[in-house]
């Protein structure tokens, strides 16, 4: 089993944001989580990536219990994520912004920085090369020398992908990557996700755009009020009575 959750639950006071969710990712595939606003999708991501600790339940990654690990340790294990919004350092170039994504694979300290040691130079080069590589992968080579303040919304999304990829992940969790961009650009991002999978990276994304999901995903989980109400292939989800009633609200044809 690659990555799975066991009876994962998160309560915020009286609110149960994620309720008893057991889910396993298909390795090397595109997994998707859908559900109405407030269904607990982002919270589910936060639990897996260690940003929140679950009230109960477990997260297992390659037979290791990672439930209580802090986010930076989870990242080191090869689990990356993006957020619904990404804050970049606007006064710095795109390339410089992405370099820090590879920081977790380096060891140089403040002293290395001050003394400009061999290790410092080696690792600066390594991070630079990694940043160039992932920016090429996401198709941003052209803007890599521009300031982050001057790139488009869609390019910012790609930078967020690049940052996640720079950590050398085995699996990436993408929180609503296509929110706030137009359909053409959405197509481009979908292509990018397929490219990640071709590279052997497992993808798990949250998405609202149903058409995109149905075309793209290999496996879908549907959340509603924090509970998993369905799981399966796109066809199975589209024909699931529970989903049609609870989520699609009768307008399943849309």
């Amino acid at each position: 089993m690659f990555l799975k959750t066991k009876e994962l639950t998160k309560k915020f006071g009286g609110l149960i944001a994620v309720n008893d969710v057991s889910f396993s990712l298909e390795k090397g595939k595109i997994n998707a989580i859908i559900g109405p606003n407030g269904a607990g999708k982002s919270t589910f991501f936060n639990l897996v990536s260690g940003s929140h600790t679950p009230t109960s339940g477990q997260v297992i990654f390659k037979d290791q219990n990672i439930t209580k690990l802090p986010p930076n340790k989870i990242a080191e294990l090869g689990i990356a994520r993006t957020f619904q919004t990404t804050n970049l350092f606007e006064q710095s170039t795109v390339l410089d912004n992405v370099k820090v994504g590879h920081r977790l694979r380096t060891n140089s300290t403040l002293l290395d920085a001050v003394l400009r040691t061999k290790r410092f130079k080696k690792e600066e080069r390594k991070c630079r090369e990694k940043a160039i590589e992932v920016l090429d992968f996401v198709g941003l080579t052209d803007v890599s020398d521009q300031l982050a303040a001057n790139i488009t919304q869609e390019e910012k999304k790609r930078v967020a992908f690049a940052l996640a990829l720079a950590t050398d992940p085995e699996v990436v969790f993408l929180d609503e990557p296509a929110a706030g961009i137009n359909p053409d650009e959405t197509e481009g991002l979908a292509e990018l996700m397929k490219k990640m999978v071709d590279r052997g990276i497992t993808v798990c994304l949250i998405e609202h755009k149903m058409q995109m999901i149905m075309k793209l995903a290999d496996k879908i989980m549907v959340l509603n009020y924090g509970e998993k109400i369905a799981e399966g292939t796109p066809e199975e989800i589209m024909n699931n009575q529970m989903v049609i009633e609870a989520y699609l609200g009768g307008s399943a044809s849309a």
Partner: protein
Amino acid sequence: MAALLNRRTVISGFILLALVFPFLTKNSYVLHILTLAFIWMIAVYGLNLLAGYTGYLSLAHAGFFAIGAYSLGILTVKVGMNYWLAFLSSLIITCILGLLIGLIALRTKEHFFAIYTLCVGYIIYLVIDKWDGLTGGVRGLIGIPVPAGFGPLSFEKPLSQYYLILFFLLLTVLMVYRIVHSLSGRTFIAIRNSEELAKTLGIATMKNKLMVFVLSTLFAGLAGVLYASFIRFIGPDIGYITITFDLLMYLLVGGIGTLAGPIVGTLLIVWVSQSLQFLQDYRMLIFGPLLTLLIIFYPRGIIGAFYEWKIKRQEKKRMRALIKNHKDAEFPTANSVPDKKVKEG
């Protein structure tokens, strides 16, 4: 490349100016004020690393400045320690206290961090003010020695102190420059931008924040140590909140989170303060509104405003180039008068 060369020349120019400045003025008072300004700059650089680059606004910095100054004062005057040993010990003491306070303070964030460190700063001041036996209380410490000389070098004269302090300032700037332009610096900036994102990128945020905190207290302490042996008298006032706010004002005016900000802000405010001295504390009536306006319109100070202008100009240039390329591509034959193109280029 041109920009780099440009920056290099500007920096070298400033260093040269600082080096020859004592020969340009015969006024020893000006030299004294400038030396003091250098000391403040060192402390402001410390504050900048923490508040500007990492996003944690500490209001305890006058406290650490005072800890550095008093450590040196006590170790030299009361203990009678060798000067440079006391110098080093004072920095270590400041860092150890910084580490202990940082461990607690960094459990808080944003406003809470600012308020907590404000309290810590005040407590440090109170301890200095009330602990008569150790610090001399309100009477302060007098007779702090000037830095001991090395061989032929001696630091008895104000001029030689000017150069010594300039040396430490340049060292500080070099260190901060190298840190900011390194993976460590980018790590701090990532924490400032979003701690949550930084964590999921695998950054141990607490460890990094603690490092910056200690480093920033080191610079505050260094400034304090230099102050003590430059003025040779210290009282509890050097740890008072007003000093923290002075440092913060220098940083905000010059540009928080910029490399040249601390120098520009400190020089400007110190100079303006000196020119407005006849107004005494009413100066604040002028500073207050000016500072407010500056923060509203240029949240990243003078240097920040300069960079913003440069960015905008670059972007405009790029857009113009894009549009031009577009036009050229769209009408390759319709407008194929070759000499026209040459003119445009």
